[in-house]
């Protein structure tokens, strides 16, 4: 399997628009970070995917942010990422020197309005995102070879996950949207142990985010012990999660699979819910948030630095292996779409809360 180096068309377009806007602005922030340092708060433990991605980005940010600040990645684990995000809400000053770098584990509790959440993600200013695509694959013993077989497996489908309201949510919503008949076993420690259970044959349908898929599952696919079925998809020109994941152009997106199975494009509250949660999980998977009230000057500094990192050949070659070869999305691309995903309609929110409390017994 090859990973294309061409970024999403839409992103390129957006970046061009943004760059155009910047070109007119005076180069005011030449050395904004000279002599300063940035604390990058990762609300998970060392070694997790978010930590790995933060460490991967650290040297590129140091090199390309004006004034070459020292970037310190600090982990603040606890409360399924809620503790670190709450800390950030209470302590971070809007001066661009503290960044919250996190995943859907932080945004889902916010979208669902869970009790422990004290942070207001929608009021924060996203500085950039790194897509965090995902591939759903099955065991060959299920007899499933194409999406069309999903409704007629040889054996009952068993999915292993962590917790319904965390990073499993978009995949569970995809299963819901596609009306798959499967047994969900929740309570694994992480996606790694869940994948081990798949390898042992205890479960037979699984998904992994791009970095883990690249390093662990690709070999299984080559050895014939895993069959990739679909990717979560990426936000396309229409602003919805309908495009193929640029890291996996050969795999259909959930959107396409729905079309194939049902003969029409997905719609309705099930789709809206998948679209909202899926977009924050996959497309804006790892997002760097700046505190509310961060001045535009800082946003522009990041806008330029992100463009420069994307053009850095060193980044392009290293990111393929480490984080799936995606380009970083600048704030101009991210802000509006992410804001919309973080504040879904009441219908979608009610649907999510109903589904979680009735089907997955989640206390909200």
């Amino acid at each position, binding site marked *: 399997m090859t990973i294309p180096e061409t970024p999403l068309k839409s992103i390129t377009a957006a970046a061009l628009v943004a760059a155009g806007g910047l070109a007119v602005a005076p180069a005011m922030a030449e050395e904004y970070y000279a002599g300063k340092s940035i604390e990058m708060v990762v609300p998970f*433990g*060392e*070694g*997790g995917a978010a*930590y*790995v991605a933060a*460490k*991967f980005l650290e040297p590129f940010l140091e090199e390309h942010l004006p004034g070459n600040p020292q970037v*310190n990645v*600090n982990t*603040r*684990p*606890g*409360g*399924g990422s*809620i*503790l*670190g995000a*709450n*800390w950030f809400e209470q302590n971070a000053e809007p001066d661009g020197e503290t960044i919250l770098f996190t995943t859907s584990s932080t945004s889902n509790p916010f979208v669902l309005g869970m009790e*422990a959440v004290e942070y207001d993600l929608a009021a924060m200013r996203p500085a950039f995102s790194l897509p965090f695509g995902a591939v759903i694959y099955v065991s060959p013993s299920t007899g499933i070879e194409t999406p069309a077989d999903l409704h007629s497996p040889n054996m009952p489908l*068993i999915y*292993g996950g962590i*917790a*319904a*309201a965390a990073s499993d949510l978009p995949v569970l919503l995809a299963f819901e949207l596609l009306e798959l008949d499967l*047994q969900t*076993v*929740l*309570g*694994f*420690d*992480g996606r*790694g*142990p869940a*994948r*081990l*259970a798949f*390898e*042992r044959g*205890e*479960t037979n349908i699984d998904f992994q985010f791009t970095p*883990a898929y*690249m*390093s*662990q599952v690709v*070999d299984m696919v080559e050895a014939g012990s895993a069959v990739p079925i679909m990717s979560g998809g990426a936000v396309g020109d229409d602003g919805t999660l309908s495009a193929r994941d640029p890291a996996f152009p050969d795999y259909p997106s959930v959107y396409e699979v729905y079309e194939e199975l049902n003969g029409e494009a997905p719609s309705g509250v099930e789709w809206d819910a998948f679209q909202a949660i899926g977009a924050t999980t996959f497309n804006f998977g790892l997002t760097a948030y700046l505190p509310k009230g961060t001045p535009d000057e800082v946003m522009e500094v990041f806008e330029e630095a992100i463009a420069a990192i994307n053009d850095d050949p060193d980044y392009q070659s*290293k990111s393929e*292996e*480490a984080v799936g070869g995606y380009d970083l999305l600048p704030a101009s691309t991210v802000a509006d779409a992410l804001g919309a995903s973080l504040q879904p309609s009441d219908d979608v929110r009610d649907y999510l809360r109903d589904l*979680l409390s009735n089907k*997955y*017994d*989640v*206390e909200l």
Partner: protein
Amino acid sequence: MFENIVSALDLLFQPVRLLALFVGMLAGMIFGMLPGLGGVAAVSILLPFIYLMDGYAGLAMLLGAISVIYTADTITSVLLGAPGSPASAPTAIEGHALAKQGKASLALGVGFLASMVGGLFGALILSVAIPVAGPLVLALGTPELFMFALVGLCFAASMVGKDLAVGLAAACFGILLGVVGAAPAAANYRFIFGQSYLMDGLSLPIVALGLFAVAELIGMVAAGGGIAGKPTPLGKWSDSFCEFWRHRWLVCRASVIGIFGGFVPAVGASASTWIAYGHALSSTKDKRNFGKGEIRGVASAEGANNATIISDLVPTMLFSVPGGPAAAIFLGALFSFGFYPGPRMVSESPDLMYMIVWSVALASVLGAAICFAVTPYIARLTRVNFALIAAPLLLIMVAGAYQGTRTFGDILALLALGILGWLMKNAGVPRAPVLVGFVLATPMEQYFWLTTQIHGFTWLTRPGVLIIASLIVIPLVLNVVRRLRQRWSAGHDEPQPQTAADGGEIASHDSSVVLVMVLLMVAVFGYALVEMLGFRPNARLMPSLGIVPGLLLSLYLLGRQLVRMRRQGAVANLASRKELPVLGGILLYGIAMWLIGFNLATPLLLAWLLIGCARMRWNSALLYGLAVYAVAQGMFAMMRSTPPQGVLLNLPMPW
């Protein structure tokens, strides 16, 4: 393969990398020796520095630390009786008892040698097994993982001591501590009292630090004088070599058990150490010395824990699923250097694999040698007035605990558990079962629900489950057979050794503390029972396993204590009264830290400890205090965190 082994040696034997390995070993040894801190603290302190080097040197540094942790913590476990981690609790119990008998050198020597053998076994397994270990790790499904945790808990029960009721109640309490936080099988947070701090449950380092280290520290500051009331002679090393040689096969078997524990992600060192200890217990004919200073207990535990922490790297490198917390940090480091663990790594970078093996082997041997060399000096420290050592020690514990989530909750949890540990110690309630119950509650509950959801009840017939279960059943059967045979040959008046559960131990302790402790347990278990009834059905099973027997046992203990106190006539015996000021001082330090922050509260603590407790002269106290303060600030700076800030007032630091 052979050429890879040699070229890997070439990779490692470059001055910078060897130096990195030694620096890592040094950090690992220091952190191993500091009570309560262990692998996780050492590796996370080193983490920022590894990025200053090339990948091989950075990894060598981490491996150096990982390989010696369980060798060096033998020193503190034996000399202080405070284990660095749950996996060293057997060493602390047996080894410290030996030290009190004047056989410290025997316990230390056997401990070092067993650790070394465990480390070498681990290295051997890494080199031989990694290419073939995949199927073995995959053969261990969730039912096997569940069974493994269960076996660990059963063997830990052998540690509950002579007073069975007290020991079991302690284990139940450990389970209760372990179920705090999110339930694995139902979306239910348990016992979090609306605090997001408790959502992920209590962290292991903080529980170990609080229960053991803080409690020991209070007692020793209050006692004044040195760590060991009277100078403890180390004794001769030569005895320990003989003793080690006598038990060489036990050490090898314990190492194999430890390696097996390392293959099992998430259960790891705690369970396998207890299983090895249980194995030592069941394979020893004369069991009377267990709990009172049995060298076989030290040998088995040390062999197993070092083997585990190294074979934890097997699932880490094969499946990128870390076997333990230190391995998890190592995994993060591998990623950061652009190595992607998995079956492919084994074939693509064999040099890296063997460099890891060499690092581990070299560090294990050198670590043991260095431990032999430094022990006499450390033993001398045990005669220095403890208040002088307590000052830096307490600050290190605060810094170590604060690393957990960097919220004030860490400090609060540390102090609350410290008080609890102090109460338990003075009430004669063993703390090791609490720790084991705490550690194993989570994997047991998680794997139980996963197992029954995935496999229904067919899991009971899986061969792996049966093999692991036989670890419990076979020694039990052998024991019964042996006892029956003994009885048959010796007639029926055979005295029953070691099972005299008359609770003699608890009576000799401070009776009012015992009463407070027992009342506290009744209250806690009673409250937990009421709270538990409100949980969702799937979130209830594991807590009820701790709460129901815990409540019954603590009610029984309460009745027994009341009867005993009435019979003895004495209403209150406040032998531990002289420790109360120290307890109060440390509590005040916590409150002061909350109000005025670490930077202001710490000088006050230092003044109290150095001038008030250790009676140092003003100028020397000032000098020493400044040095300790600087080191504490340096630790926070090294961990790239700011010390806890006060809610009222905060002293800004010039840096």
